[in-house]
Each structure stands twice: as structure tokens, then as C-alpha cells.
């Protein structure tokens, strides 16, 4: 199946991920008037895009709308504005021979689905024939190590773990070391969820990153921040503080299979200039998909 088809299939139950009823709003043979704009604003706010971006889009769209007469024409303008929210995706470094193993550190606040996303990534890389190792560096939350062990089992990949309460930086260090010694292609580092406002916990995260790059200069090659689609404007503050601490390089948006629109990710991607790489649209392993803004926005309007 081609990428677009696959993506649309994934979207079949989440067609309305970012914006519901948008098409409906435009397809009606409506005039461009105050009430159309008000409904548009409501839709944008309800998608958690945030008031700043909403205002920005509304302003641009309304400026351009002066030359237009029907809502249908406005649709293209609107589509372009939405696409412009997502920065261009960077090439993945996975095939860079110098970066072997490719070290990915997974971070985020509590309960966004870090471990699940990491587990799905392990399965994905494994199915691509890569040698994968997981470092269970969430030594804090009760039973977190057991959870990641179950994922390692499922994906039949290696795992490096210490006991609960151990220094996570040491686990990460050992994980990278084992990855290098055993000729792994990918090392995934699971970290404990933490609120971005807890200074000491963010310092701990910095330390994990430092110890990883100590063992392997240039690593981690990727810092994947996992965001929950139901999160509101707080995601901006999460992203900012995580970025300050460990330099987020890409984003994953989980739990998009509910009714949340996840619009905040656009604001996050825009403010950090880090691409949205994966979206989680279900419990199944195949439900972690690569994200492409172009296809995504087009699919919304089909």
C-alpha cells in the first residue's frame, strides 16, 4: 500500500483528528461573514490550537478573504495556513554509519504514553530487521521496569536494567555501552515521566543525557518528546522546559484515537521547530504512524 493510502486508512477512524466539521463549514454554499469567522474561531480553539495561533490564523485568513467571495475559496487559504504550522521534517539519521547504535531518548511528563510509544518503536525497528536494545532508565515509578520488560519480551529485543530506585543515568550509560559492545543498531532509553516544573527532576534528565554522551559522543542522536493529544495549552510550557533541559529533536503525539484534536502539537512544533514525527492512533502496534503534515492536512479535507 502506498504511503497516502496507508495514512488514510489510519485516518479512517481519526479523520477528524485536528479539526472536525471544517469541511462541513466550508462545503456549505456559505458567504464569508462574521458568523463564519466566529464558527471558525470556535473550531480552532476547541482543537486546542491555542488562542495565539488561532488569532494569528484568523487574522491571516480574514485578510486574504477580502478578495474572495465564497467559503469554498477560503478553504484553500485555510489549508495552506494549517500546513504552514508544521515545520519541514528532517532526514532521519538512522542510516548514518557513524551513529551506530542510533540512540533515542524518550522523554515527557507523566502518563503521556512514553513506555508504550517506546515499546511500539522497538517493535517497528525490530520488524525492519534492526538490532534493538532498550535501557530501562525509569527506575522511579512503581513497576515501570516490569512494564518495559514486557514490551522487550513482546518485541524480543534486548534490555538493560538495574533494580528499582537505581541511578537512571547509570542505566542509560550501561544501555549505550551494551549497545556498542553488542553491535546494536538502535538503543531506546526509557525515562521516568516528570512534570517539567520539577527542577531537580529536570536536572536528573540532563544528567542522563550527559552520561549518554559521555559514553558515546554525539549521542543521544534523537530526543523524542511524547505529548498526549488531550493536553491543552500546558503542552507549550512542557515543550519549552524539556527543550531547555535536553534539546528535544522530535515529537510524538499519542492518544489521537479519542475525541481530542491534538491541535496544541501545531503550536508546539511551531515554537520549537522540532518536527512531529509520530502519531499514536490506537492500542495496536501498527497504530504508531509516521506523520506527514502535507498528507495529513489534505486527508482532513478530502
Amino acid at each position, binding site marked *: 500500500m502506498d504511503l497516502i493510502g496507508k495514512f488514510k486508512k489510519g485516518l479512517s477512524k481519526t479523520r477528524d483528528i485536528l479539526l472536525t466539521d471544517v469541511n462541513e463549514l466550508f462545503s456549505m454554499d456559505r458567504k464569508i461573514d462574521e458568523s463564519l469567522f466566529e464558527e471558525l474561531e470556535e473550531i480552532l480553539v476547541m482543537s486546542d490550537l491555542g488562542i495565539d495561533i488561532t488569532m494569528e490564523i484568523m487574522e491571516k485568513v480574514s485578510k486574504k478573504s477580502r478578495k474572495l467571495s465564497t467559503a469554498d475559496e477560503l478553504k484553500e487559504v485555510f489549508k495552506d495556513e494549517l500546513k504552514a504550522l508544521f515545520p519541514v521534517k528532517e532526514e532521519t539519521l538512522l542510516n548514518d554509519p557513524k551513529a551506530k547504535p542510533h540512540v533515542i531518548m524518550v522523554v515527557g511528563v507523566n*502518563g503521556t504514553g512514553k513506555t508504550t510509544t517506546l515499546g511500539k518503536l522497538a517493535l517497528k525497528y525490530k520488524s525492519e530487521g534492526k538490532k534493538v536494545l532498550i535501557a530501562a532508565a525509569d527506575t522511579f515509578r512503581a*513497576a515501570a521496569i516490569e512494564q518495559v520488560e514486557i514490551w522487550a519480551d513482546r518485541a524480543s529485543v534486548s534490555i538493560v536494567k538495574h533494580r528499582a530506585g537505581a541511578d537512571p543515568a547509570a542505566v542509560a550509560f550501561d544501555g549505550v555501552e551494551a549497545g556498542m559492545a553488542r553491535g546494536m543498531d538502535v538503543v531506546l532509553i526509557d525515562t521516568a515521566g516528570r512534570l*517539567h516544573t520539577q527542577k531537580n527532576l529536570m536536572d536528573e534528565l540532563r544528567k542522563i543525557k550527559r552520561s549518554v554522551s559521555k559514553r558515546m559522543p554525539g549521542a543521544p542522536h534523537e530526543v523524542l518528546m511524547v505529548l498526549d493529544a*488531550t493536553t491543552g*495549552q500546558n503542552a507549550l510550557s512542557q515543550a519549552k522546559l524539556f527543550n531547555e533541559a535536553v534539546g528535544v529533536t522530535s515529537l510524538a503525539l499519542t492518544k489521537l484515537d479519542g475525541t481530542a484534536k491534538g491541535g496544541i502539537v501545531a503550536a508546539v512544533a511551531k515554537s520549537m521547530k522540532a518536527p512531529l514525527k509520530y502519531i499514536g492512533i490506537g492500542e495496536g502496534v501498527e497504530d504508531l504512524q509516521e506523520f506527514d503534515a502535507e498528507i495529513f492536512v489534505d486527508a482532513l479535507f478530502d
Partner: protein
Amino acid sequence: MFDNLSDKLNAVFKKLKGRGTLTEKNIEEGLKQVRLALLEADVNYRVAKKVISDIKERALGQDVMDSLTPGQQIVKIVYDEFTTMMGDEHEALNFGGATPASIMLVGLQGSGKTTTAGKLALFLRKNGRKPYLVPVDVYRPAAIEQLQKLGSQIGVPVFPSTAQMAPVDICTEAVRSAINEGCDTLLIDTAGRLHIDEELMAELEAIKKSIKPSEILLVADAMTGQDAVNIAESFDKRLNLGGVILSKMDGDARGGAALSIKAVTGKPLKFIGVGEKTTALEPFYPDRMASRILGMGDTLSFIEKAQEAVDIKKAEELEKKLRKNQFTLEDFMDQISSVRKMGSIKELIGMLPGINKKQLAGMNIDDREFVRIEAIINSMTPQERRDHAIIKGSRKKRIAMGSGTTVQDVNKLLKSYTQAMKVVKKFNKGGLRSLKNMLPF
């Protein structure tokens, strides 16, 4: 908590209060800003619209316009409307119906159900009940282990569920074994899934039917955006919720969900989770929360926390000691540990009225500082603690080594202790009767 919203609102109010008279235009401009602040705080779009129109209706009345302090009046109106929006009064947990009583916790994955179950168990035990934790999440890897570990941390019995058991069977068996264990309140930690997951909803309904819980509580993440209302509505439709617990309020969450859920579903917010520790769960009071949001502080919660943490007998003993100038480093440490029991210092200061939140953010209070102080005092001999004057060079060196600090740290502590003692002596000479409220810092 609500800091962003508070800042924005206070900026608006400052402008309004600065004027002697208010025109309709002034008020409308101000309310526009309030609306933006609400939307930025994730308050539901429709709820924001309704609240603003309610405030506007009252604010444009003659009473306000004619008032000598129109700005002040508007703050009062906003306070009233926020309180109403959040539910007016605190609603307590319901234990009626079958004995033992059961409380079911439901919610999305990652909302904090399991952690909240542990916190709630501890809260119930403090309030004289005998909780029994029942893990029913047989799907998420290691979810049962997580609750079992939490249970053993706080010393609350946990039903030995296994991932092979059916959820309804777990619940019915748990009721029997709760009675055997002499427990009177079951806390049922259900599996987290999306609210549109039909299978899960059916499972929750089956559990509800089999054990007839006295209370079904939705655990929702304070960081949730506009979807919070949809989530609450779908759970409520299927299960008829008794209330909501909002978790993770300790971050810089906008908390707008808190302001919206009651307004849309009519179901009250009963508790808020305010930290990682198992004690970090607070009953929710709409009026107190409204005054926190509007930067008027929450002294009531502060006093309650102090009462919870401070032992009255010990306080009286302390008063005597202070009066006789016999307040030793040992007592000093007791004081510190009871203050720490109340929660993080930052959170406590945030409850006091008139504290500038921005200044607070810049202060960067590190709770670990107290760990250091404790370590230093713990490294002293009993004699040294009773008589700090004997602590000289070599003793200082030993104490610093023992506590993993430096001699400077030890000096700093001794200095702040002697300064506190000087203040106490002055008070004693001045004949101030009660020093009960005087903490050493």
C-alpha cells in the same frame, strides 16, 4: 497552579481598579481580556462564553457603575461567577449504600488513576476509614504490580489480583476478602482507556452493576485541554459519575478543565492531586480555589494543613521551651520536619495572600535545602544538639563530613539558629504571651 491565569487576570483588574469611574467600553475591553485569559487556560470555549456574558450582565448594572470602587466590584463579580462555575460548595465523598462501601476510579490512560488510588487510600485512613485497594487493570503491563507496590508503601492492604482474572470476578471476590481483612472501603482502580472504547465502557458498567459502588469518580489530568469536557461527559453518560478528581495540579497546569467540568456536566470536583508524594491530595473547595485564582490567597487551606501536621501537645511543649529560652537544635529540627509535612514550601507560600507569584518563581526554593539541614543536625551528637556553643572547629569538620556538607554549610545553619534564638529572646523579654505561631524562620 493557575499562575498564568492569575497573572493575566490581575493585569486586567489592575487596569480596571485604577479608574475612578468605569464606562461600558472599559468594562467590555477588560472582559475581552478576561475571555482570552480563560481560553488560554483551557477553559472550555462555550463555558468561557457563558461566564463572560454572565459577568458582563452583572457588571453593566447600575450598582457597579455608581459604586465608588467599580473595579473592586468587578473583581467581586468575577470571584462569584468563578465560584459558581466550579460548584459553590465542597462536596464530600459518599459512602452510602452497601457495606463495605466501594469507590470506583475511572479515567483515560495516564490520567493518574493508580497514583490517585494510593493517595485516596491514605486520605481515607487518615479520616478513620479502613481502605482496601483493588487493582482491576488487567491489561496494562505491570499495572497490578504498581498498585501493590503503592499499597505496601503506605501500608494499605491490596487485593491479590492477577492479570488472568476477569475484572468483575476480581471485584466480587475483593468484596469478600475486604470483609475478612476488616476493611470498610474498597478503592477500585479500573483500567484506563479512551472514553470511546466500547469494550472498556461495557466492562466498567458490568463492574458497576456487580458491586454497586457508592461513588464513581473520574480521574482527569489537569493539563487536559478542550477535550476534558467531552471525556467527562462520555464517562458520565455511561456510568453516572459522582464526581471528579483532578490530578497533576502541581505543575504549571492552566487548570481550565477544573473550571469547565462542573459547568458542563454538573458533576462536582471533589479532590485535586498536588504533588508526587502520597499525601499530596487535597479536598477541593470552589470558593478557596476562586480566591487562589484571583490572587487573594487561600489561608484556610494553609491553616488546615498546619493543623494536620502540627501536634498540639508538641506545640505546647515548644511554647514552654521557647519561653525559657531552652529551644535546642533538636527542637529546631522538629519544627522543620513538621513544616515539611505540610507540603512543599513553594506550594505553601503560594497559598498566602499578597504573595507576588512572579517573585516566588524567581526565588527558586529548593526543598532539598531542608534535607541538608536535617542531615547536618543528625550528624551532631546529642550533647551538641542540646548545647550548640560547644561546636567548634574540629566538631564542625566532623559534622560536615558526616552529613556530606561543608563547614560553611554547618556555619550557615548555626548562624541562622542563633539568629532565630536572638529573636525569641527579644520576644520573651518583651513579654509577648503566646509564641505558638512563631516558627524559627
